[in-house]
């Protein structure tokens, strides 16, 4: 009855630009979700730990540094080890086209490049959390 969708928005790695992450966080908030925002320069360990303690329904990862092929699978491994393999993960940021299949293969549900409308992100999250 009081159920709210809880989303973790995380920024791993070394790039210092979190405008995109904040825009998405704000859009999700405005669609009625509870968004846990952890700030810049998180390690994969910190992200997996936050996802666990907050028992989130979805994890969104924002990466602009180019290290996505290293960081994302590491986060997915840690989440799996924590028993959260069923929590959908999406990735946003600057991801070259040719890297998308690798991310999807690692278990990522959706990849959003520059210019993706936030309405699409919201719809996808609602769909992914409903199908549980």
């Amino acid at each position, binding site marked *: 009855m009081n159920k709210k969708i809880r989303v973790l928005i995380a920024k791993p790695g070394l790039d210092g630009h979190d405008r995109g992450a904040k825009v998405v966080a704000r859009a999700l908030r405005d669609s*009625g979700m509870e968004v846990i925002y952890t700030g810049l320069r998180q390690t994969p360990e910190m992200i997996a730990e936050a996802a666990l303690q907050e028992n989130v329904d979805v994890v969104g990862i924002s990466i602009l540094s180019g290290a996505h092929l290293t960081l994302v699978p590491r986060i997915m491994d840690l989440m799996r080890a924590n028993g959260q393999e069923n929590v959908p993960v999406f990735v946003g940021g600057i991801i070259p086209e040719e890297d998308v299949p690798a991310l999807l293969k690692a278990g990522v549900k959706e990849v959003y490049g520059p210019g993706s409308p936030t309405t699409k992100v919201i719809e996808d999250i609602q769909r992914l959390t409903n199908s549980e």
Partner: protein
Amino acid sequence: MDRQALQEEIKGNRLKLARLITEVENDTSSGRAALEELYPLTGKAHIIGITGAPGVGKSSLVNQLALAFRHQPHSEEKPSIAIIAIDPSSPFTGGAILGDRLRMRDLSGDPGIFIRSMAARGAIGGLARTTAQVARLMDAAGYSIILIETVGAGQAEVEIASLAHTTIVVDAPGLGDDIQAIKAGILEIADILIVNKADLPGVENTERALQSMLLLANSRQYNSPQHWEVPILRTVANRGDGMLKVLQAVQSHLSYLKNSGEWEKREHLRIRDEVKHLVVQAFIQHVQENVPSADINNAVESLYQRQTSPYKEVQKLLSKVGLQI
């Protein structure tokens, strides 16, 4: 599942605890059942509330206080700590940005610390409606210290005082004059006062305003032999300055509570408050479910026409659920 097994499960498995917190937060029947089962095992944790205006540095203080507890000088003791950080929900969409973890990154990776963010979900006292229940769950899971950071609070969000054993009120230079300090409300609930951002100009003024407020408030109690003298402490939380004194003040407040009988008194008050709260909630729900909205609409219309008075209409509506007032 029996009581001990359930406790072992949430003690040993952080994901289980996290999931059960969600059930309790959403007030589901399984959440209630678990709380009911665990109730006899609770009442052990020291609950510490941290409150103050938005931006005074509550999250940074919680971060540093947790660090101070975990790394006490000359002590082997490392109490396990649970943190509940509450942020407001949007009154329009019900959504929320929970950003308190941002300032608690130093605590990540410490298995003795569990941080949970909560949205206030429309509650107005500075806490969420189920914060007390979530704290109880953490208590049952064996956390011996529970730090609760309220929504950025102004003057009247004092609910934390009836939940916490020790209430820390955080102030910072430049937030208001001495008239603000003598107004009723948030300052009165403080067991410990902190002037954070003490490296900013104006810190003496803030301190003086708080001191004069305390003098006015306490003059009545000076005769009692065992009164607690509220300390005013300076900190610069983002650098960790002054935290040892805060830790010591929290610990001496705990021993004051235990030695003076105040602990029992506060626990009784707390339980009384909770029971009252639950009765009121159950009553409201009962009324909402059993008074037809058509009747309420009719009442509104006849009141608008000034054909009757509000008290009479309320009496009529309550008589529908068998109440006479």
